[in-house]
């Protein structure tokens, strides 16, 4: 039994996850959940990279994913520090109440 899965199905799965990430980014009001949906979008793009890497039989796409992971880790550290700073200044996590650049 060797049922092949078309590469396009992996790409469509990545598109589904990316669209759900966009919807969550726009709909959610909690700043931490918005940040989580950014991570979801990054993961969806990573899946697309790996699928294309499989398609071309090269590891360059996987190197891309490695660097995306590194940058996502750095981004998560800095972003969560910013969220902590905002919470200290405003005592809220609702983005509707965080509407001024000045803390």
């Amino acid at each position, binding site marked *: 039994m060797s049922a092949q*899965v078309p590469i396009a199905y992996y790409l469509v799965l990545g598109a589904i996850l990316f*669209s759900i990430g966009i919807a969550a980014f726009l709909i959610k009001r909690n700043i931490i959940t918005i940040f989580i949906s950014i991570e979801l979008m990054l993961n969806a793009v990573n899946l697309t990279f790996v699928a294309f890497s499989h398609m071309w039989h090269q590891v360059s796409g996987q190197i891309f994913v490695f660097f995306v992971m590194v940058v996502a880790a750095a981004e998560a550290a800095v972003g969560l520090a910013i969220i902590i700073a905002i919470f200290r200044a405003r005592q809220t996590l609702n983005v509707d109440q965080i509407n001024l650049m000045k803390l």
Partner: protein
Amino acid sequence: MQLALFLIFGVLAVAGAINLLLQRHPINSALSLVVVMMSLAVLYWSLGAEFLAAAQVIVYSGAIMVLFVFVIMLLNAGEEEHTTGSRIAYVAGFPGAAAIFCLLSFVFLSERKAMGGTDLGGYLSHSANNIAEISRLLFRDLLLPFEVTSILILVAILGAVVLARKEQ
């Protein structure tokens, strides 16, 4: 085998993502994202990227999500309340996301024949295994970008410490 893995873990990933969208409490969203990342790790493995599957589990669902859960618990984040701004986001958000999804899947499915299929294992044409190939590329050809990312991590750590520090 490939089809079964794809179906089970693809459905699991989509279910986790929809649960992320529907849950009101941030900790539930974070734990649904862990489910999505774990199923994506299995999909990476089935696509022949063993190193990335391990890195996904360790870095993403291990390190990054623990950081998220720490911050959620530190800030004692409760359920989000809905305001007038979010109703506009509902009206604009769902059609926009659906339009992007339709466009992407139309392009992918119309090119389906040209992109071919996948089968489990043995996918690199010329190398012994995935990790050897990645490390050869990463530590020999791409050594400078690799070192630059270590500087990036260092800067990010310093920035996080400075930003989260309590002001005197």
